[in-house]
């Protein structure tokens, strides 16, 4: 057999890397600012993977991703406010945020996932605006969220980076296992041609719902991590404008590519923060000019995104590409159609 790193080995290496980085953060080899940046990378990629399932896999255009992230963030922050930030209660808070976002996604999806993708875009846009207004006025119902003033007093759990990193690994695994499976191919077929998929026996509404709920759960989970990384939540953080961040990442990486989402998400955070180092402080805000220019250049030269729909080898299960036979000796109608 050829010498190849088994995926378990890779997983162990990644786990070790995560623990090491966390250790470096504890020992302040990596300062608090870069710890934030690294954690945010994980969060951005995690959330984008969710949108990747919705838009990249099943082709449903959603502009409400930030709203679902916000739902997860506020839910998780409220849970830890009362339950504290011990590992178990933090875990409960994250799961709570994830379930709430997923549950709301299911309810929102019930009526609109019967329609074609464009309608979903408009409906989720509206949903995003409603959620923002809801956050702004939420203090009337739950004073702890402080509404438009922004929620403060969120405690920081220990090892946030490690939490984010491990959950990201889990999310990558989930997305990859879904992608290379029969339900995953059903999602891809909906993206490719919804009518044809329907006629080939795919329950289109059901699979669109699965993708939407799962993707929004990822956003909710990312939101919970976000709340406990930045320790401050403001409705504007989850405005529909913020939904464009994961959208850009998914499109840049290549629609439908998990590898692309990981690379583009990491690079996106790195470029935004890296420019902060490179640029003199008086033109710092030019970051928001430079990266759109990069985007335009990218779309002109490589419209299919960095990776197209392809995946890095480690993410592809080995049974996925059965070798083509050397000889075609199978029975055919006859020799007439070679």
């Amino acid at each position: 057999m050829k010498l190849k790193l088994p995926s378990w080995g890779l997983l162990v290496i990644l786990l070790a890397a995560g623990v090491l980085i966390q250790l470096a953060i504890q020992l302040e080899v990596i300062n608090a600012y870069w710890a934030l940046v690294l954690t945010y990378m994980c969060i951005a990629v995690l959330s984008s993977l969710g949108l990747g399932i919705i838009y990249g896999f099943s082709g449903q255009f959603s502009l409400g991703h930030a709203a679902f992230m916000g739902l997860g963030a506020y839910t998780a922050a409220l849970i830890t406010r009362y339950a504290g930030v011990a590992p178990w209660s933090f875990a409960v808070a994250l799961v709570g945020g994830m379930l709430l976002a997923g549950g709301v996604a299911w309810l929102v999806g019930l009526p609109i996932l019967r329609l074609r993708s464009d309608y979903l875009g408009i409906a989720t846009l509206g949903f995003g605006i409603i959620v923002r207004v809801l956050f702004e006025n939420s203090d009337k119902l739950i004073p702890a969220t402080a509404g438009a003033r922004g929620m403060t007093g969120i405690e920081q759990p220990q090892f946030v980076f490690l939490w984010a990193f491990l959950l990201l690994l889990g999310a990558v695994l989930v997305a990859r296992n879904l992608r290379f499976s029969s339900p995953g191919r059903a999602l891809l077929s909906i993206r490719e041609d919804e009518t044809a998929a329907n006629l080939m026996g795919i329950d289109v509404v059901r699979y669109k719902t699965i993708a939407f709920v799962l993707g929004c759960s990822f956003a909710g989970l990312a939101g919970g991590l976000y709340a406990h990384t930045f320790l401050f939540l403001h409705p504007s953080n989850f405005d529909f404008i913020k939904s464009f961040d994961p959208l850009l990442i998914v499109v840049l990486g290549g629609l439908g590519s998990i590898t692309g989402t990981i690379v583009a998400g990491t690079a996106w955070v790195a470029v935004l923060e890296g420019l902060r180092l490179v640029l003199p402080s008086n033109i710092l805000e030019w970051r928001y000019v430079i990266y759109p220019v990069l985007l335009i250049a990218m779309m002109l030269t490589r419209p299919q995104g960095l990776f197209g729909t392809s995946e890095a080898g480690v993410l592809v299960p080995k049974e996925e590409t059965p070798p083509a036979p050397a000889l075609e000796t199978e029975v055919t109608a006859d020799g007439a159609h070679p």
Partner: protein
Amino acid sequence: MAPILEIVRLSKHFGGLKAVSDFDLTLNEGDLQGLIGPNGAGKTTVFNLVTGVYPVTAGDILFEGHSICGQEPWMINQRGIARTFQNIRLFPNLSVLDNVRVACHAHGGYSTLEAIARLGRFRSHEQAITERARSLLAVFNLLGRQNEIAKNLPYGEQRRVEIARALAANPKVLLLDEPAAGMNPSEVGSLMELIHFIRDRFKLTILLIEHQMRVVMGICEQITVMDFGQVIARGKPEEIQNNPKVIEAYLGRGVSYRTAQ
């Protein structure tokens, strides 16, 4: 024996346009029938009605004795009616193998949760799906193409992938919408053999729409001719060829005009 597919007084109106009216057709198990007619006669609309793409205006469609009117296309497919399309509708960016495996999905036998956790029935059933898809590709001599992206295949091979994909759902009735469109004469010859072959091998009942008279006259046992949404003739190929109504529908009123002089 009861017919496998029975279309009774089927009508479809788009606003004031009567695309199909009072259309009748009976398919018995093992039949290989043809549906022909000039452009715009309503042939593809009939396919779209049978497969559930359009809701039916009036009439009924019975599959194995049960009405399938009002059912979703995926339900009808899972019950056993599969089709191909006039303009090829493969999943363009998926591999040839995945195109066929998508259509195996309904009979895949494992849940999304099992797929994500890679537990339970996943491994054995996934393997079964792949094997099934590969054996179908082998029948169509496409096994060597399995990892290629569907849109990169030449036209004739795309047509064969489409038929393989339709068969993956394990249908009892296969509807072929202009399978020979855009093929050269030698490709048409092998297509005709292929259609015969799959009918016997997969025990299918086939209804096909076709413009190439060589195909229709060559393989269909019974032909139904449509014009302006209605059945104008029905019978064996030789009967159809000599039917004045059919000649009129295709070629115009030339003959009767001369007699009127």
